[in-house]
């Protein structure tokens, strides 16, 4: 079945793709790894979420409206914040949670609007066909960055508690006492994006570019978009993570410069 240069996958063929999940289930069962529940949950959620997204996006694309695009963006941001909280294996204090929310609501948004208005420059500014997929990539990558930064900052400070305290006892400011761990957290958050850029085009072809090529767009145009979006992602991740780290390291201290974890 071909239409507009792209193969529409027949229903039974799409179902056949789930064979891979079955294979994975057989492997984990055989190796005694208790991950069945998670695999099934992930597969079901992915399927349901994408079907819903398909319908919602179709509706939004057919009825473009600024509030709908912004609403979708808000939903993405809220979902990503919820995901960050869920992925961290320890209870976070209120101050840190507030910093996650603040940085996720400002960093990706600033990067997104700059990217849309200056780099891609589409009109109207809320055109959902561009606005939503780009927002997804920018918010999603910022989420991964903040999760990594949060975990590394928390682990760095907690496992070096004695050193941080020893510096405070001498009279170092909290900022100076955790500088090493703050820098390491930033590094760990930006590194996956940088590694991704290093292997780009050789080790892997990214999803957006693959999608565009499969739908008949010239690879030369596809790479233009890919280069722009990768730099946009790098900008969004760095901006959000820097903002998060600068705001949140203070949350590990009391107002009297004592460690509070």
């Amino acid at each position, binding site marked *: 079945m071909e239409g507009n240069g792209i193969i529409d996958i027949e229903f039974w063929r799409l179902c056949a793709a789930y064979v891979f999940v079955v294979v994975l289930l057989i492997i984990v069962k055989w190796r005694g790894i208790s991950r069945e529940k998670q695999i099934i949950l992930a597969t079901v959620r992915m399927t349901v979420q994408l079907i819903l997204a398909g319908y919602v996006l179709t509706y939004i694309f057919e009825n473009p409206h600024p509030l709908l695009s912004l609403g979708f963006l808000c939903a993405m941001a809220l979902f990503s914040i919820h995901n960050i909280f869920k992925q961290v294996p320890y209870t976070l204090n209120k101050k840190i949670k507030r910093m996650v929310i603040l940085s996720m609501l400002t960093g990706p948004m600033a990067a997104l609007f700059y990217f849309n208005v200056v780099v891609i420059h589409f009109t109207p500014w809320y055109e959902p066909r561009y606005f939503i997929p780009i927002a997804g990539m920018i918010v999603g990558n910022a989420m991964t960055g903040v999760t990594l930064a949060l975990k590394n900052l928390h682990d760095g400070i907690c496992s070096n508690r004695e050193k941080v*305290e020893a510096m*405070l006892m*001498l009279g170092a400011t909290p900022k100076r006492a955790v500088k090493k761990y703050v820098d390491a957290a930033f590094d760990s958050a930006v590194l996956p994006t940088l590694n991704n850029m290093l292997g780009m085009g050789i080790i892997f072809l990214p999803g957006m570019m693959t999608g565009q090529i499969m739908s008949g767009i010239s690879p030369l145009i596809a790479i233009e978009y890919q280069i722009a979006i990768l730099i946009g992602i790098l900008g969004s991740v760095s901006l959000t993570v820097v903002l998060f780290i600068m705001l949140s390291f203070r949350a590990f201290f009391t107002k*009297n410069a*004592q460690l509070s974890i």
Partner: protein
Amino acid sequence: MMFRLEKIRYKGILHIDNLTISAGMVTCLTGESGAGKTSLLRLLNRMDDPDSGSIFYQDQLLESLNPIEHRRKVTMLSQTPFILPGTIEENLQMGLELTEREKKDETELEKALETVQLQKALTDGAENLSGGEKQRLALARLLLLKPEVYLLDEPTAALDEETELKVMSRFLEEVKLEKGTVIMITHSRQLADICAEKMIIMKKAKEDDY
């Protein structure tokens, strides 16, 4: 008067009705483990705040002082010395850098090493030092900061008694020249007998004290 403590309660560990610590003296804190010696030093360094009661430093309420500036005057040396990868010189300068003070020249650094009797070159690596050598390096680093009050938590516990006495006598001599005050936790009877001008013997707080 350097410190005055009134009606201090802290986490069921400390119960101090009244305590004064004089300026320009060496005060030794001794007592069984769990008696709250380290907790007391941490309160004086403002790494923790008491649950109730007041601490005065030079007649000023500790709560009213900037904690970071206070720690630069009343500086604490933690029980486990923290040594960063790098040379001895870098480790000595780090204390000055951390507290936003001017770097010192090599002569002064060497003098500090000599005071704590650490016979090493400034260019030697600090990470390979033994436990006792690391403690002495941390003491030398503290000496370069010249605080008003030195809060020392078993500063020479990893040394044999003879070396401990030699190092601490020289160290305290140097501090006295600068008119510094020392409050030191020690388990060594001999060290306390020789160095202490005042002794505080701490006992575990009983539950009915609260």
